[in-house]
């Protein structure tokens, strides 16, 4: 018998009587300005929100950024060099108000390690793709269609030395979410 069969056999023999799945209750709460709330939450964990009118305006702003900027926004953005960029700009799928997380479909990037390199990470998210909590957010995601996806909330951080918070443990030390009104 293989280990697989032995383990599954033991589980079948030992498992308790089947208990029903409770379903996911409605955990909603009364309205709040989602972008405002998201901004407060993100600032509490060391990030920052910016509002731009349109996607085009966001791209123009990106082009004006100083220093070594690497953007992966449209399919032509495929350039990769060895040097770690100062700023990395990527697209996000959606944003979650309760925890200031953005979901990034990393399949859209040329390499999976892109969001974890550089000093400053900027994620562009469409303004109406913001959801109150994780239940709503997962409702708008299909992991079956994604090879690697990730929620990112704020900059990389650690408090492993005497509970003192330090940003930029291994990933970026700054994180911004730019909300734009429409795709134009």
């Amino acid at each position, binding site marked *: 018998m293989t280990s697989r069969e032995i383990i599954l056999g033991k*589980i079948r023999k030992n498992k*308790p009587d089947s208990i029903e799945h409770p379903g996911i209750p409605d955990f909603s709460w009364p309205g709040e300005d989602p972008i405002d709330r998201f901004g407060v939450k993100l600032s509490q964990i060391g990030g920052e929100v910016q509002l731009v009118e349109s996607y085009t305006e966001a791209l123009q702003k990106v082009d004006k950024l100083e220093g070594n900027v690497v953007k992966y926004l449209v399919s032509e953005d495929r350039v990769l060099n060895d040097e770690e960029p100062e700023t990395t700009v990527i697209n996000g799928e959606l944003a979650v108000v309760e925890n200031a997380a953005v979901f990034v479909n990393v399949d859209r990037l040329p390499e999976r390690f892109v969001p974890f390199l550089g000093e400053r990470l900027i994620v562009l998210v469409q303004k109406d793709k913001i959801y109150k909590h994780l239940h709503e957010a997962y409702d708008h995601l299909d992991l079956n269609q994604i090879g690697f*996806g990730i929620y990112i909330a704020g900059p990389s951080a650690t408090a492993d030395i005497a509970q003192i918070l330090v940003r930029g443990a291994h*990933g970026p030390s700054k994180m911004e979410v730019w909300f734009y009104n429409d795709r134009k």
Partner: protein
Amino acid sequence: MARVKHAKAAANYIHHSKNPKAQHNAASHLRKKRDREVINVPGWEHLRETASQIKMHTLSNLDKYLEEFERKATQNGVKVHWAQDGNEMNEIVYGILDQHQVPYLVKSKSMLTEECHLNDYLEKRGIDVFDTDLGERIVQLSKETPSHIVVPAMHKTREDISELFHDTMKTEKGNLDAKYLTLAARKDLREKFMNARAALTGVNFGVAETGTVTIATNEGNADLGVNKAPVQIHCMGLEKMVPRQMDLSVFLRLLGRSATGQSITTYSSHYQRPKPGGEMHIVLVDNGRSKHLGMEDFWTALKCIRCGACMNTCPVYRSGGGHSYGYTVPGPIGSIITPARDINQYDDLPFASSLCGSCSDVCPVKIDIHGQLLKWREVIVDHGIVDKSKSIPMKMGSKVLSKPSWYRFAGSIARKVMKQFPGLVSSMVKDWTRGRELPEVPKESFRSWYIKNKKKNDK
């Protein structure tokens, strides 16, 4: 090496370690952060209850979900392995690394691999392991084990770490700046990350519906490692399963808040498929879990999502420190998991509790931790593996208490002896009187007082 019993190890920590308060302060700090965050979440109790039921549902159908998970992951191009115990897991991991002739491995935090002593196994076979979580790196460099599952170097002070980094990374002597030290560790590991050919992580949740491996970290070390290296390996305990992607919404809302008071960890990654041109392996590890599932009174301990909240709140853990438990998972949850694995080796741990119940109150998946601690005590006493210094007085006590006349006689003797020879009595129960005073001796028993007063009142 024989395990030192908890009481002795904890006493040693309290009286002989350099900084016995370090762990206490850190754990209290995390407990407070948790409270401040949790109070703002509408429906928190309902969320806990939902999580508990989802876990019970999953565990009671675990075979089905593991098979679905395997099927889905395999379809996604992932290689799934099954390991009955730690040794088999180590063999599988070594096999993968050996096949690729990998000189070293970057590894993010994984209590499962600590439990199975993977580092030792690989290092003996010539493969270096670099723990990349800062806390794990600190305990690795100081040749220790984690004292906490979320904050592995919780027992260490800034001074300790500064000295350690000076010795191992040539940082400036006496520099206590946490940022300076953290960035030194970042720099030290950077080159390892960039050139790694294999990376290994633990797993927080496995999703049956999508074959997803979910990993929650704050540093980004797990994802940097996994995505730089062509070969990625995820070691996962069987009990980490959840049925559907929507179930993750419940657990990710609970995990960070319970662990460190964060609404969510900085990174919550979902790996479904290997990177283009890369390899992805998942090792499903039993190591006693399927046996534990069959224990009627104790199987719900497998609901645990390893947030560490029960440790942060536990007065015994905070005082005695994480190492005193002598197991990878310390604290209240460790004390109910360990006897399920090996009751003879860990028979002392269910007694390492005041049964205050705070652990059960903070547990995000509502494990009745203090109830199970008490039940384990019963099992251990029934097994007759209780220390004689406890079992003999208990037997005598139960005899005396079961016979009213004996009880009354014993009481009258005790009152006399305590009055005449308080020093003698004190020395007889010296473990108890260390730090406490014996109570004042009453003139008579409650019974005689009551009879006397009742007569008075009846008149």
